[in-house]
């Protein structure tokens, strides 16, 4: 789990580890995951697009189950995400890159995005670096957070970002454990829509929904 480094190791409480472990144990892979050719990218365009869709679905559902918001390809390769140990089949780094790249395109529904600043994106893509896996797009996340604020009647109150993603109050929410950078983005969407405002400086930001 730590190899995926989805969670900031410093802030991960011990209970988190147990929950993710159980999720890992009970996670049911899609049937295609046990089909050996699944791990070879197909040359036939029709088959290939179908295969990429399956991969996209597989990666998203896996990340959702394991609360992964971003993956580092190099680190994730040996995990069950890309390696089926029972079949002893694994997706190669190049193919994994191709899959994630496809997910980041319009064809793939923009379900992934390479992380880093503008200049670093190409580097991350070529080296198989980190990528956000959008099992929810930032717009969707913004909606989810807004709904939560609505549901808990916290409109108008100022929430710290820590409260949103790390506190016990949101433990049952999907966005619990979300990385700060992604959260900033999601809240950015809300700000743009004029539904929220971000205060404060680096490291101690607060957000207010209205």
């Amino acid at each position, binding site marked *: 789990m730590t190899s995926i480094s989805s969670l900031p190791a410093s802030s991960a409480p011990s209970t988190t580890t147990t929950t993710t472990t159980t999720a890992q144990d009970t996670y049911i892979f*899609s*049937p*295609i995951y*046990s*089909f*050996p*050719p*699944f*791990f*070879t990218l*197909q*040359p*036939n365009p*029709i*088959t290939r697009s*179908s*295969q990429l*869709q*399956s991969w996209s*679905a*597989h990666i*998203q*559902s896996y990340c*959702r189950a394991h609360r992964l918001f971003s993956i580092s390809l190099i680190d994730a390769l040996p995990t069950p995400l890309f390696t089926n140990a*029972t*079949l*002893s*089949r694994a997706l190669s780094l190049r193919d994994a890159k191709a899959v994630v790249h496809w997910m980041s395109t319009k064809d793939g529904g923009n379900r992934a995005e390479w992380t880093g600043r503008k200049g670093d994106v190409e580097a991350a893509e070529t080296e198989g670096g980190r990528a956000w896996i959008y*099992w*929810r797009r930032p717009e*969707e996340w913004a909606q989810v957070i807004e709904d939560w604020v609505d549901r808990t009647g916290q409109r108008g109150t100022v929430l710290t970002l820590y409260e949103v993603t790390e506190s016990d109050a949101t433990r049952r929410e999907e966005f619990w454990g979300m990385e700060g950078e992604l959260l900033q983005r999601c809240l950015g969407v809300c700000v743009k829509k004029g539904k929220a405002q971000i205060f404060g400086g680096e490291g101690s930001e607060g957000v207010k929904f209205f």
Partner: protein
Amino acid sequence: MFLHQLDLTTALRPSLLPEETLLFVQDAVGLYEGKFKIPQYQNGQAYLTSHRACYVDHSEPRRNSVAIHLKDVERHDFYAGFLKSSPKITLYPKPLKQLSSSTPDRSGSPAPAPAPAPSVSATWVCPICSFSNPVPSNFDPAAANVRTPLPPCLACGIKPPLIHVVKAAIAAISNRQPPELPPKYDETSVSAPSKSGTNPNSLVCPRCTFQNHPSLTTCEMCGGALPSPVSKRLEAAQEIGRAESPGPSLSTPLKDMAIESIKFSFRCGGEKIFYERLKNALVQRKWLLQSAPPIPKPRPASGTPDDGFSTPTDATAQDPARNKVVGIAGLERRGLEQRKNNEVMIGSSFEDLEALMTSAKEIIALAEQFASQANLGTNGNSEASALASQSASALGLVTTKDMLGSGSESLYVSELSRNLAEWLTDDTRGILKKEGGIMTLVDLWAVFNRARGGVELVSPADFEKAARMWDKLKLPVRLRQFKSGLLVVQGRDRTDEKTIASLLVWLEMLHTEAPAPDTQWDWEQYGRGVTAQEAAEWFGWSVGVATEELEMAEESGALCREQGLDGVRFWENWLVRLPVETSAT
């Protein structure tokens, strides 16, 4: 009946009779009956064989094709052409036997009416090799002079003195009064001497099967009439004629008994070579050869009868002597005798070429035997090489460049194309079947050239051109190009869909057997992946073909691949078949 229905092969070439060989082919030929063009027979190919002159129509080959048996040809004429009139070769039919007396007015025919009669029985004995040859059918002792063309001896190839033939013909005519007596038979028996006591020419009584001396006309045992060797020969000749199929008769006035002559009009040249070869064929008269007596079997003094030829009496005489030696010594003795026999056979055959021609059959059999013995040592004799060793039998129907007239490359290629298609679809050889219905063009080229026995090899360029013509000529095979550029040959009825279906059926079968005890995936659902080698083995394809077929199926989306350490495996395409699970958002 001068014109005969013609049987065509799958490739729309005349199907040849046994022993018949193709001599010449020319395209753009039309037919005339007398002075008039025959409708619907105006554009086709003329095939000259050792037995027949055939016309195969270009547009309607199955309907409008006729053959003229050269044995029915009385006379031939050549017209060189003038301005717009094409060169023509005219064939005049022999007067029909029952009409022979009533057709003395046949214009320009030099032979008087009774002439055909002596031809039936007359033989002249070659003064050099003492082979008894038939007197030409149109030879008339009364009209013969120095310029009368005489056929050379069939065995030694030397032309006889005219007087010799005239004597023979007259003797035959005078001998005809007692028809039971086979004329000149003594010479025939002299020509086939035998050192051993039995005569290979002995006449078997049709009633009691007693072997009579050939000069007898009635059986010694039962007194029944014996067939004379000459009439045997006639029977054989008639059999050739009868071999044609009783297909529907031509519905044109062609069937008329009153065909005066048939003209072949050569619109695109080739008439000179055709005429030249026609004349040769008429002189050689291969259709008579079939009934020629076999050449005497050389017997060494040690008396080792070749199994196939030993007569019963011979065998019993030899048996005790042979049985004395048993075991390894006996085997060695037998090997020695066999070799001695072979030596004598080869020695006598190569003494002169004519003799070789007549004993060709034995020599070919011997050569094949040697070839099979040589093959025995090497393990690598596949189906294809076994096929190639049948080369001698494959020689029968080949198109070579010198058979074709007017030097036209396209005719050669199209003939080669037909030739190939015929050879491929020949069920007795089953070349395509052995290769799983598909083989690469390169393999085919190799096998084909080997089958030609090292003569008249086809150049790769011509071969490819010929293969590319299959589509144009609507032949039952087709050339197919895979994506990688590999050219393969397969039957026309074999489509990609059928191949894919058979592949899928096979993969479906694999669902029922566990690939390996420790298989981790759900093989009952997914089956297993197959390599090109496995497919090649299963379907009898070559590996290259199997790879291409599998990739073709992949291309169509029926299969998908798995790249593993041990190469590419192909699976049923579950990637497409399984529904994509959309993540519930």
